[in-house]
């Protein structure tokens, strides 16, 4: 690179440099010290509250501190280079030397294509060729896991900014220096956050240090704080208000579901505020990305407030060019046609963005309808406004003005919530089913909702009046350099909540609330979804994107879909079984399937006289998801028993592992009828976990959705009684089947017990808590009671994980199954239970 470009300063840059305070002036040093302190506090909060933990933002904290320091005390002309170098440091830190170098080289290649000394269309073609290579990597046309991983990050840096950059080049804008181009593309927060605001090149240039840097620093801190507040707001909604569609039973819960769904956008606005605040520290005085979108009074107003960068991008690249082209050929409805075109493009661009982040594109009709409705509403609104623009301004009383705005705001919020819930539904019938719940109310409910609505109107009206007072406005729109008295105490207060000594003086409820906010975890509903998707992926090989994490984490290894190598699909209730004598690698562990189709070692089919054989029924925990065959607790237990309990009557213990990921009680009953007793076990161990009722209902709903033959009269009876049909959405099926959960539990427990006794085997019920859920004592009591009713021998493994931190017993943050150590703990505890009950268990053989 030619370093002489440093000297090629443009007149406005010299002017900017002159405007900046002297690097070592007292005022500036003070401002820097305060900003640096606040930045440290912000990163402390990020760490303690696990803000966007999966993004890696906490990990790059030290790089940010060092580069911010260097940047602040370097002459202006070097700062774009420092911004670029910061990004390089983050890339090398995240991807290592080799992969990082490949990453950077590819980025250089794309930028070089834009400046290739050839006609503009040839440059565009070259960029397209480079993107085609990226496309091949992204869709994993050939297996190159690490390259495929970086492709999404490279794409995130370039997918929109390259379009803007080429557009500006086409119309004669020349980068001032190579560092300007490089720092425009290499924005280090983008490596952490793949969803990134579409920063305009012209705006970037125009706003770069357009105010003194000490003002910019405080503005950055203010925006980062605002971002954190939005993210906390998101967490409150996510943990406390967002409910599962199957929990929507009446008008009240429907409204809660819809409002909470829309409010989740707080996470995106929080992230964008944080990103732009961070960039502010490096001189990018960029405009706001979100502007109080919940206060929108009509559709065009909303379009101007929500994701403003997206709107600006679409206007510049598509709206104006389309409109200018069309106005030469059509006269009527020009605005409407242009806007429809723009919204179709918007929908496609969202798909394009999702493709680069997820690695695949799925046509989603809900997505299309969402954009169609939103686009249609904004277009109609815009056309009406265009017509009204020539009408005289009507003076009305201030109160009426406030009231009108208030009602419009509430109306817009309700409409957007409905639309958002539609967008977030799994399918149209699911959403339609939810809407039918609107009719579930009584006159008392109506009165209640009317009172709430009245209070909301009153509150919003009051807020509107207050916020429009000149004095209040002055506080809200304070110049950034005067906001230290807001940001510093706010950050310190949040900080205080993380101190143990401070917790001691707070009421328990508040401590619990803060603890909940300080975790980045899935709420109960997403945990269920994630679990269901985990098995869906296992069966269908689909990429799971519903875990609530937006970014593909750097730590998360990419996996080949090897499931098909060991699974065979079946038409019965089991839906899939292991392929005998097969093996594969799943989650970095060898999965070996024996000749009977079990994840176990090979046993003789015929049981010898002195062998005590047991059959283990379970799901992914018992199958040993994420660990090797030899580390599964079933194997460890077998070894322990064999080494200590052998005598002259029983000299061999065998545990046949019938467990498979995604198997619940219904599958276990099917196994009892079709497989288990072929091997003449002396005992059948069924391992139960928490949430049995929910799981069995969901499992039956899945079978009905898939149109499986339910085979058993009880299941067909329940299906008929519940009015469940294959065409129904899963949400509706769960709603209809839930009243039968108790019957299902009783029936399955009874079937396992009866089949066991009929075949001279002893049923054993084991309760094994999952690693991430606390045990619900009420549920445990209920399950114990049912197990006792059908004469199971009961073993309760509550407390099996002792006081060990979850991280030490789970496989990883994204796979909460027990790791090797976790399996050891389970085997030890289960062994203790076997010793306690050995007379009962082994007596009948003896």
């Amino acid at each position: 690179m030619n370093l002489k470009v440093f000297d090629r300063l443009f007149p406005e840059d010299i002017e900017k440099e002159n405007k900046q305070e002297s690097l070592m002036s007292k005022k500036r040093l003070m401002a820097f010290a305060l900003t640096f302190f606040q930045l440290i506090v912000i990163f402390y909060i990020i760490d303690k509250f696990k803000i966007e933990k999966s993004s890696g933002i906490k990990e790059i904290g030290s790089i940010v501190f060092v580069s911010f320091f260097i940047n602040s005390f370097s002459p202006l002309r070097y700062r774009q280079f420092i911004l670029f170098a910061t990004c390089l440091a983050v890339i090398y830190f995240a991807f290592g030397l080799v992969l990082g170098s490949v990453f950077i080289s590819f980025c250089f290649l794309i930028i070089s294509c834009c400046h290739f000394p050839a006609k503009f269309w040839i440059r565009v073609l070259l960029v397209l060729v480079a993107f085609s290579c990226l496309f091949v990597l992204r869709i994993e046309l050939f297996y190159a896991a690490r390259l495929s991983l970086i492709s999404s990050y490279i794409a995130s840096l370039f997918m929109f900014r390259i379009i803007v950059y080429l557009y500006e080049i086409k119309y004669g804008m020349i980068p001032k220096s190579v560092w300007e181009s490089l720092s425009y593309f290499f924005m280090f927060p983008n490596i952490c956050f793949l969803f990134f605001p579409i920063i305009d090149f012209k705006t970037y240039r125009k706003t770069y240090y357009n105010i003194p840097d000490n003002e910019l620093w405080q503005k950055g801190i203010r925006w980062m704080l605002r971002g954190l507040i939005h993210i906390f707001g998101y967490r409150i909604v996510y943990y406390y208000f967002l409910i599962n569609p199957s929990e929507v039973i009446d008008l009240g819960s429907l409204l809660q579901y819809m409002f909470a769904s829309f409010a989740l956008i707080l996470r995106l606005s929080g992230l964008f505020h944080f990103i732009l605040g961070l960039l502010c520290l490096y001189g990018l005085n960029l405009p706001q990305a979100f502007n109080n979108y919940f206060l929108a009074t009509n559709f065009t107003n909303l379009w101007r407030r929500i994701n403003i960068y997206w709107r600006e991008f679409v206007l510049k690249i598509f709206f104006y060019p389309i409109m200018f082209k069309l106005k030469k050929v059509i006269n009527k409805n020009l605005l409407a046609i242009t806007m429809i075109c723009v919204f179709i493009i918007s929908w496609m661009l969202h798909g394009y963005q999702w493709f680069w982040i997820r690695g695949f594109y799925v046509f989603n009709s809900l997505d299309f309808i969402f954009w169609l409705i939103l686009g249609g509403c904004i277009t109609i609104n815009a056309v009406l406004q265009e017509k009204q623009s020539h009408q005289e301004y009507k003076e009305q009383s201030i109160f009426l003005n406030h009231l009108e705005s208030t009602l419009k705001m509430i109306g817009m919020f309700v409409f957007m919530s409905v639309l958002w819930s539609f967008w977030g539904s799994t399918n149209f019938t699911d959403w339609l089913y939810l809407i039918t719940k609107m009719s579930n109310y009584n006159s008392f409910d109506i009165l209640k909702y009317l009172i709430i609505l009245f209070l909301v109107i009153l509150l919003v009206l009051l807020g509107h009046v207050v916020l429009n007072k000149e004095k209040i406005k002055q506080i809200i729109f304070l110049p950034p350099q005067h906001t230290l008295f807001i940001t510093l105490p706010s950050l310190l207060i949040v900080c205080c909540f993380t101190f143990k000594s401070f917790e001691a003086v707070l009421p328990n409820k508040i401590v619990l609330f803060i603890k909940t906010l300080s975790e980045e975890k899935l709420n109960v509903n997403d945990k269920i979804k994630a679990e269901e998707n985990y098995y869906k992926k296992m069966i269908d090989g689909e990429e799971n994107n519903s875990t609530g994490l937006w970014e593909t984490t750097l730590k998360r290894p990419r996996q080949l879909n090897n499931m098909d190598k060991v699974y065979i699909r079946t038409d019965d209730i089991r839906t899939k079984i292991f392929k005998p004598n097969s093996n594969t690698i799943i989650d970095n562990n060898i999965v070996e399937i024996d000749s009977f189709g079990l994840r176990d070692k090979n046993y003789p089919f015929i049981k010898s006289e002195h062998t005590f054989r047991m059959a283990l029924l379970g799901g992914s925990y018992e199958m040993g998801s994420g660990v090797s065959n030899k580390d599964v607790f079933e194997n460890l237990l077998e070894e322990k028993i064999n080494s200590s309990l052998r005598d002259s009557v029983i000299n061999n213990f065998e545990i046949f592992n019938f467990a498979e990921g995604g198997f619940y009680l219904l599958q276990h009953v099917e196994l009892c009828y079709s497989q288990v007793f072929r091997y003449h076990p002396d005992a059948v161990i069924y391992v139960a976990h928490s949430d049995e009722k929910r799981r069995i209902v969901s499992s039956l709903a899945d079978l009905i959705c898939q149109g499986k033959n339910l085979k058993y009269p009880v299941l067909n009876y329940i299906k008929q009684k519940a009015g469940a049909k294959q065409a129904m959405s899963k949400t509706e099926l769960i709603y209809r089947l839930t009243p039968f959960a108790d019957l299902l539990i009783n029936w399955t427990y009874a079937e396992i017990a009866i089949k066991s006794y009929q075949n001279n085997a002893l049923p054993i019920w084991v309760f094994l808590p999952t690693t991430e859920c606390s045990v619900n004592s009420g549920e445990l009591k209920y399950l114990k009671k049912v197990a006792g009713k059908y004469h199971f021998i009961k073993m309760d493994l509550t407390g099996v994980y002792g006081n060990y931190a979850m991280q030490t017993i789970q496989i990883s943050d994204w796979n909460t199954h027990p790791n090797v150590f976790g399996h050891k703990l389970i085997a030890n505890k289960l062994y203790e239970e076997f010793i306690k009950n050995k007379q009962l268990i082994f007596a009948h053989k003896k």
Partner: protein
Amino acid sequence: MKENTNTISEKITHYLVNQLLKNKNIGTINESTPLITGGLMDSISTMQLIAFLEKEFNIEFEAHEVDKDNFDSILVIVQFVENKLK
């Protein structure tokens, strides 16, 4: 030239106040009032203003010229129109 500038400015101000922003409570506007960044004009009103300028001054605009830099105040609009007329 000075007179010409004044005429252009007057025509634009008149159009903005009496036509385009007629239904808005804009108070008073002067030559440097921010029109786009101040929220008085959006993409639709910008296009309406362009239609007016093209017709009034018999000039043509390109899509890439529709920019805050060229339309954010009466002052810059006048300068831009003048450049087009040259």
